[in-house]
């Protein structure tokens, strides 16, 4: 007959032993802060980022939390603020989080323009006593415009490196489609990321691989990043982010008779422009888009018109880890894409840095802990990403992330080329 005493006794001993061996769970949680666009027309970016952040925090806590310097383990907790897509709001949130909360690090913001302004209020050089800027580490997930992290030594990014991505994309296009010779394009001129990446990165990459501007050479464009970028914009057919009528631009695209069209804009105007091109029966041999458009929004807005569009992206559900994050993001009411998926990687990076840097997570060590995390981020050489290893560009605070090329096919983004194996 089963004796309850015999069953309970080993269990009690096992529990006591386990408590002695395993680190105690610290009372205080480790707080991280996220912020992004939760209002305004780019709200979906903030919604997606928070959905992924929430899933990542749960994942860390479910696996036992984060080990602190004294050997105890603490759960992770996050707060999320709305910085819209507004520079003043992003700066205000950064100041509030740094001065009024015990957050050890921040993740955000959404928009490159807001990030550029916000990074400007951080201490430029670590240890500069004459600089009273914020001393609070940031690991950005979304704002993607090239080179922003250099603004402050406290700011780091885990965002795609677009110059590298478009360079490889045009190398691949030149090899895969040898008959295509000419390009033409346009961008949202009131959006820093869209027009900066278009004029300084995409058109330059096309030039390096021998593609000609369909309406004649553009003065000053050599293929070097940013060369002749004002002339690129002057020679393109552009629009604004809130435009509703694309007839003039679509006619210019069609008239150019280019083999390749470049549409560098966010989902709303990407869809507006693509639909107008379709109505005008402007049929390029290849469509190339901006990284930010490789999202669910384009598929919701204009899947049919986007058919065939090729975009490089640093996220696609092509590994078990990426598939899991995509599923968890959906469960939390968001979508995992190249921007939001970085929030997952960021949380895992933060866990790794906290555990290796000897963070104490006490009120009296708050500033020292933030500094340790910053220093820890700076020394990282590579991190584990969802679709492969991410290299850190240490002196710039930037990342070199693996990427794939996706194409709009039948209402979803499908991977058509995976350059990770040749990187």
């Amino acid at each position, binding site marked *: 007959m089963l004796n309850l005493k015999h069953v309970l006794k080993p269990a009690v001993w096992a529990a006591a032993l386990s408590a002695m061996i395993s680190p105690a769970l610290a009372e205080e949680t480790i707080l991280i802060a996220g912020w992004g*666009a939760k*209002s*305004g*027309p*780019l*709200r*979906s970016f903030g*919604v997606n980022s928070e959905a992924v952040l929430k899933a990542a925090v749960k994942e860390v806590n479910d696996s036992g939390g984060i080990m602190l310097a004294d050997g105890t383990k603490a759960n992770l907790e996050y707060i999320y603020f709305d910085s819209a897509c507004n520079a003043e709001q992003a700066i205000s949130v950064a100041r509030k989080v740094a001065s009024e909360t015990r957050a050890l690090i921040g993740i955000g913001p959404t928009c490159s323009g807001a990030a550029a302004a916000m990074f400007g209020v951080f201490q430029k050089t670590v240890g500069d006593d004459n600089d009273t800027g914020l001393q609070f580490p940031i690991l950005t997930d979304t704002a993607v415009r090239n080179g922003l992290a250099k603004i402050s030594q406290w700011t780091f990014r885990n965002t795609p490196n677009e110059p590298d991505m478009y360079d490889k994309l045009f190398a691949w296009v030149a090899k895969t489609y040898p008959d295509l010779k000419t390009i033409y394009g346009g961008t949202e*001129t009131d959006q820093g990321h869209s027009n900066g990446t278009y004029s300084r990165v995409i058109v330059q990459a096309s030039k390096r691989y021998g593609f000609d501007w369909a*309406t004649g050479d553009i003065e000053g464009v050599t293929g070097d990043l940013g060369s002749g970028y004002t002339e690129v914009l*002057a*020679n393109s057919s*552009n*629009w*604004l*982010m*809130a*435009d*509703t*009528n*694309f*007839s*003039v*631009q679509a*006619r*210019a695209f069609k*008239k*150019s008779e280019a083999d390749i069209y470049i549409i560098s804009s966010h*989902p*709303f105007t990407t*869809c*507006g422009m693509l*639909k*107008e091109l379709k*109505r*005008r*029966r402007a049929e390029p041999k290849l469509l190339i888009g901006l990284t930010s458009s490789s999202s*669910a*929004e384009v598929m*919701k*807005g*204009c*899947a049919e*018109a986007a058919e065939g569009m090729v975009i490089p992206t640093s996220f696609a559900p092509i590994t078990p880890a990426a598939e899991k994050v995509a599923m968890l993001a959906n469960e939390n009411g968001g979508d995992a894409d190249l921007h939001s998926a970085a929030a997952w990687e960021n949380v895992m990076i933060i866990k790794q840095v906290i555990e290796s840097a000897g963070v104490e997570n006490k009120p009296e060590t708050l500033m020292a802990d933030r500094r340790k995390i910053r220093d820890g981020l700076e020394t990282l050489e590579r991190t584990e990403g969802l679709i492969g290893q991410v290299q850190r560009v240490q002196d710039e605070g930037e990342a070199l992330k693996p990427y794939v090329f996706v194409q709009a096919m039948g209402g979803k983004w499908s991977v058509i080329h995976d350059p990770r194996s040749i990187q």
Partner: protein
Amino acid sequence: MGIDFIDVAQAIIDGLLFGSTYALIGLGFTLIFGAMHKLNMAYAASAIAGAYVGLAAIALSGLPPVLAFFLGPVASGVIGLAVYITCFRYMPASNMLAPLMASIGALFFIDEIIIHATAGSPLAFPAVMDDVYFELGEYGFRGDLIFVLVTSLVAMLVLLYVLFGTRLGLATRAVSQQVVAAELCGIASHRTNATTFVLTGVLGGLAGCMAAAAVGVISPLLTVPITVKGLIVTVIGGLGSIPGAIIAGFAVGGFENLFLLVFGVNQRDIYVFLLLFVFLVFRPNGLLGKAIKRD
């Protein structure tokens, strides 16, 4: 790339066709101003909100997409009534600024509701004759924009009939001319104003659906530019002038496209606003508004 005559003509044709949505929005602004001498800044937001409701209704119920063009205006009419009650009906008549500011608040309130409901994502909006494109020599005419133009013209004719051929229109015109006299004649001015808001709301909902159909996508990004265009049309047409708003809507659409073609997108709006300033300075009563005497 050089600009030839065909480019210019095509840009103006496209602008005129798209301008019919501006005309509808301008009509709404001018009708409310004509009736109450007040601006309803939430008008375009109500119009887009109505279009969203129409889209949601067909998505949830599985109704044919074309019904969005009927359900949207109905929803906009209801939203228009809500805006009247909250921003105009109980505001002190002596404080001209109060309803204006309240309606600006309503504009952003409605906008944020849309953003929160849709996460700001653009959504595909059904278009009629989307794949129809008429070619006449070198010129092309979008079938969906012709549909927008025809629908807008029919809506304008219906509106003109309501205003000039029905007792409701008579009451609206009476209230707009002299509220006290109208009330002495037994016309309930508040009810007439509320009806005007519903009527213009329906018109706005149609314009919102037309604008979304013309782009092929609906997004909260549409509200502010359509509000601005509607106001420009109202001023250029002449505050309170219905035919003026119609003509100005088409004119603004045409000029906007022409400026885009000639000067590029970064300077386009400079010239559109310059056009507004030219009217304000040299013809403050607009194209067909009542003469305004200078101080």
